[in-house]
């Protein structure tokens, strides 16, 4: 079991090396990358925006009640913004991304494998790593931070809605505390770097699972499940490591 897990991680790492080597060649397929940014990014916007809004609202509600115990409701904006930018935004976006875009990447590549489309590309002298895998990988790295930013913006909006419009917190206090407590580089950009890494990891796992899936419908189904499970675990584990180093 352990040996199998290690072998998977090792194979995944080698796959990453192959992708990175194929990246220069995939620049010829820029149009394909653009298409993939649309599929993994733009198509995930709806779920990201809705979830961002609700996460922001529930944060506003929960933290307002907790902070009111200490008489610190003025800090609501700061606390919401910091928890969103540093943790919840990148992590929840990555988890949603794994479920929404990761699974479809795995299923798509897995079916291409099962229906010989990858072999057909090989035979047409088109490298599937450069044409299929690398554009999706790039798209994930590009799309994830942008999705996380949209998530955060909607989250702030949701928290403002609950804290200011419903619970009656002063709007000026909400914003001025946030602006004095949040820093661009240590908070906002920290989250952006994190989500870029999550984007790379999630799409790496999704493409790897799809690319190496046994070419049967059962194999594709398992690979899709593994994508979600492994992406979630990897996201949270890497989040801890990165937080420990970036703090």
């Amino acid at each position, binding site marked *: 079991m352990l040996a199998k897990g290690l072998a998977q991680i090792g194979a995944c790492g080698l796959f990453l090396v192959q992708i990175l080597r194929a990246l220069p060649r995939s620049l010829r397929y820029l149009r394909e990358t653009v298409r993939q940014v649309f599929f993994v990014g733009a198509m995930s916007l709806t779920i990201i925006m809705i979830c961002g809004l609700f996460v922001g609202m529930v944060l506003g509600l929960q933290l307002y009640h907790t902070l009111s115990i200490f008489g610190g409701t003025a800090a609501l904006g700061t606390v919401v913004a910091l928890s969103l930018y540093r943790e919840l935004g990148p992590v929840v976006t990555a988890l949603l991304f794994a479920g929404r875009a990761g699974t479809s990447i795995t299923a798509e590549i897995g*079916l*291409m494998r099962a*229906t*010989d*489309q990858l*072999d*057909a*590309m*090989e*035979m*047409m*002298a*088109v*490298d599937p790593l450069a*044409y299929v895998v690398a554009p999706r990988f790039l798209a994930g790295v590009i799309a994830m931070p942008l999705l996380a930013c949209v998530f955060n913006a909607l989250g702030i909006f949701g928290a403002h809605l609950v804290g200011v419009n419903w619970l009656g917190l002063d709007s000026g206090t909400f914003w001025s505390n946030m602006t004095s407590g949040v820093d661009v580089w240590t908070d906002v950009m920290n989250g952006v770097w994190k989500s870029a890494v999550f984007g790379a990891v999630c799409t790496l796992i999704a493409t790897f699972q799809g690319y190496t899936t046994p070419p049967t419908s059962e194999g594709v189904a398992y690979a899709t499940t593994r994508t979600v499970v492994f992406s979630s675990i990897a996201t949270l584990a890497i989040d801890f490591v990165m937080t420990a180093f970036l703090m």
Partner: protein
Amino acid sequence: MRAFPAVRGSGKVADPDESDSMNVATGQQDEILIRIRGLHTVLNGKTIFDGVDLDIPRGRVTGIMGPSGTGKTTLLRHITGQLAPDAGEILVAGKSVWKLDREALFELREKIGYLFQNSALLTDFSVFENVAFPLRQHMKLPEELVRNIVFTKLQAVGLRGAAQLMPSELSGGMIRRVALARAIVRDPMLIIYDEPFVGLDPIALNQIVKLIRTLNDTLRVTAILVAHEFSAVRRVADHIHLLAGGKIVADGAPETLARGATPWTRQFFSGEADGPVPFHYPAPDYARQLGLSA
């Protein structure tokens, strides 16, 4: 290059530098395009090839037949450099496939049209884009020219009207024909048909047979045809190799083979259930396994 076709001796391996334009050249019927020597392959502990020697002449349709599971598709994967054999040499147009680097291998594959068993159309492109795919990937052609080439090929397979459909909207026979159009879109020197007749109704099957024959008659393209429907293969193939038990067990023109008297050909072409290809998968003694013998 057409200037000195007669210089080449028959049976001689083609000069790699001059092989490019040979697909339309005539008068070299006996020249060997693919030469396989001493091929040995073991897959998952099962011996697939046990010393296969095979020559595929230029400009002809060569049929490779054999019972299921004898490694016909594996042989094609060896020839196209998708799967490495354990031993043996494979020369395609004078180049040893397994000594080529990736660039050279891709260069070789650009000259090969491959019709996959399940057609392998790219599902998120339309029929037109599928056929245009090899052109777009390897040549910077003006859109006008791409259109003309693609429509010419689609016309040849009778599907010009279906150009804007998606693969999911086509029937099995039409998909096969689109895949055929894609395989020939760059006028390859070699076309490989992997089980082109499987799962087709008689009409679609006859359409494919006709297309393969027409292609060879008009363009003199070298073709390898892997199939096990003898009735269809005998109508297109110039020469048939029968593969069984890891070896070439018989070869010859279709009519000679059909009359042939070796146990292999008799069993295969008349479809007997038992014979040199055993009905039973290797197993321990039946009585012992049932616990009947003392």
